[in-house]
């Protein structure tokens, strides 16, 4: 049992950046906008959080700066697709490329700079409980924030009036516009929230997961987050499940390799997290009617308020 705690901690750490980015993108897509720039926004968040972390030594400020950077990049995206009605797919891809380049440029002087990891929570008594203590009371703040924000997103989308309006904008922006909702403004807020969440995901990588800056250090996690949203059929609970499943399987296959109990080629094992996560999410979401119900009907379509 003692050895279980570090494994669970690793799973949580692997899932957290995905959870941030995917929950953010979920809100964006629910408003009818498809932002493929998640990877770029995560990198932007990672580099700015790292720089602020090194310069100020303040983890909270660093994470906030990462979120702000993600938001700034998302704002550029919003100007293009909401203001200038550019194609969302092309603009999102461009944002990823831009984010990769910009983060490399900003981080030039910070390659090879070490940074102490974010402090972990310590509650005397509680954190000392074997196994459960460090899991529930021994993480850093961003891990708790990712869980809280996931719950908040789920509540907001399905239990609040504002969430209902956001979803209606994603379903039928013309109708929402006709009854007086400011479609563009609502979508702008959703896109900015998505950017902030991607930035936080990146900040978690560069502040806590592997506290350093190296170019392209997200290594494709933004794309995995995007895929999670789709395969989870736009349901917050399944996004959470998918993120933890993917994190868990990534760790499980590494442990399987090192334990050497069964001899499966490592190439195959390296593939399993992707494969298994997709299979599980597709199987639990195979109800076509529910997919139609949850998928935002106007996703990716340019909205121009006429009349």
């Amino acid at each position, binding site marked *: 049992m003692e*050895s279980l705690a*570090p*494994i669970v901690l*690793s799973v949580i750490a*692997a899932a957290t*950046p995905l959870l941030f980015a995917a929950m953010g993108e979920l809100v964006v897509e629910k408003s009818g906008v498809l932002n493929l720039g998640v990877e770029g926004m995560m990198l932007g968040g990672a580099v700015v959080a790292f720089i602020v972390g090194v310069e100020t030594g303040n983890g909270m400020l660093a994470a906030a700066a990462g979120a702000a950077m993600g938001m700034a990049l998302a704002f550029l995206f919003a100007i293009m697709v909401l203001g200038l009605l550019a194609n969302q797919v092309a603009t999102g891809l461009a944002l*990823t*490329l831009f984010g*990769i*380049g910009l983060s*490399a*440029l900003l*981080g*030039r002087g910070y*390659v*090879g*700079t*070490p940074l102490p*990891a974010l402090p972990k929570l310590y509650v005397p008594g509680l954190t000392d409980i074997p196994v459960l203590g460090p899991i529930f009371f021994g993480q850093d703040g961003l891990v708790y924030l990712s869980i809280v924000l996931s719950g908040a997103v789920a509540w907001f989308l399905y239990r609040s009036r504002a969430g209902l309006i956001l979803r209606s904008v994603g379903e039928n922006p013309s109708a929402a516009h006709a009854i007086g909702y400011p479609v563009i403004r609502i979508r702008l807020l959703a896109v900015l929230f998505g950017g902030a969440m991607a930035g936080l995901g990146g900040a978690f*990588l560069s502040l806590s*997961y*592997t*506290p*350093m800056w*190296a*170019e*392209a*250090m*997200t*290594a*494709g*996690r933004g794309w995995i987050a995007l895929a999670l949203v789709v395969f989870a059929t736009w349901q917050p609970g399944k996004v959470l499940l998918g993120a933890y499943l993917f994190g868990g399987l*990534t*760790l499980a296959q*590494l*442990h399987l*390799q*090192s*334990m*050497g109990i069964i*001899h499966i*080629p*490592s*190439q195959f094992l*390296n593939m399993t997290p992707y494969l298994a996560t997709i299979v599980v999410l597709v199987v639990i979401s195979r109800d076509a009617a529910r997919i139609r119900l949850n998928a935002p009907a106007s996703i990716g379509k340019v909205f121009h308020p006429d009349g």
Partner: protein
Amino acid sequence: MTKLTRRSFSAMTLALGASAALPARAADPLKVGFIYVGPIGDHGWSYQHDQGRLAVEKAFGDKVETSYVESVPEGADAERVITQMVRSGHKLIFTTSFGYMNPTLKVAKMFPDVMFEHATGFMREKNMSTYAARFYEGRAVVGVLAGHMSKTNKVGYVASVPIPEVFRGINAFTVAARRINPAIEVTPIWIGEWYNPGKEADAAKALIDQGADILLQHTDSPAPVQTAAERGIWAVGQASDMERFGPEAHMTAIVDHWDPYYINRVQAALDGTWESTDTWGGLSTGMVNMSAFNKALPENVVAEAKAMEEAIIAGTSHPFMGPIKNQAGEVVVAEGATLSDGDLLGMNWYVEGVNGKVPG
């Protein structure tokens, strides 16, 4: 992971184009070009090559002019970038990744007056040399340290992709460590990538959770060293000095040191004595270096590691000197025999003491 960006490429092309327009003069500096597969900010492979380029600039001053293009994908794109370098007047061009072999060869055949140097490949031409580092020699030195320092007798090895270079490292290390402590077992985890800090850290954590108290890596980011430091175990830096990422954990690093080779080759090009050669340098030529040993290591252990280093340099020891058994326990290198370079270049098996099956 293939890089999507060639952010500096367009800027370079502009710069190259501009300089190509200048009329050539007799006293023009020798133009030396470098092609890198990763960003120079990877703090690993490409970073070390760029350190070599800077050393060339420092050594020759205004007698040379160097330029580089980073994050160049291996394949057809590389051919274009290399050709562009030639057209802009570069006379000596280093292409620093295995996948540039065919593009370099193709361009070399088109421009017989230009000198090419390709790292880690095996195809040569009259105007195309190859060079590589015997990184595995450093693994044998580290093996001595691990043989003495491991208490759990378990060593974790974060491995990248199953190619002979990585097998050589795992085997050289295992042989040396088990000569000190025959109970040592080495467990590799293959992550299938050269560079993914998060996944490298995950693999390191998995190995530590399985009881490893010494961590080696053949991947490019400092994440495993950092993880080892966090968990309070020993680690070894890869390709460049990673001491900063875990001062307590970092036993030493096996460092690629291209400076002497690059300076040497540029000198030959300046003198007009450049010839196509095949160089596989190691500790003895300074192409592979050990960084400073951790002060917390016992003196006698460091002395033994240094003795191994010196023996390899002197040629009295070889990391693959027999007797060496394979995983099945069969003697594959007899006592007194040594594996040939040919055997090393095609190595795709594990020695005794490595856990798990060869991937593939």
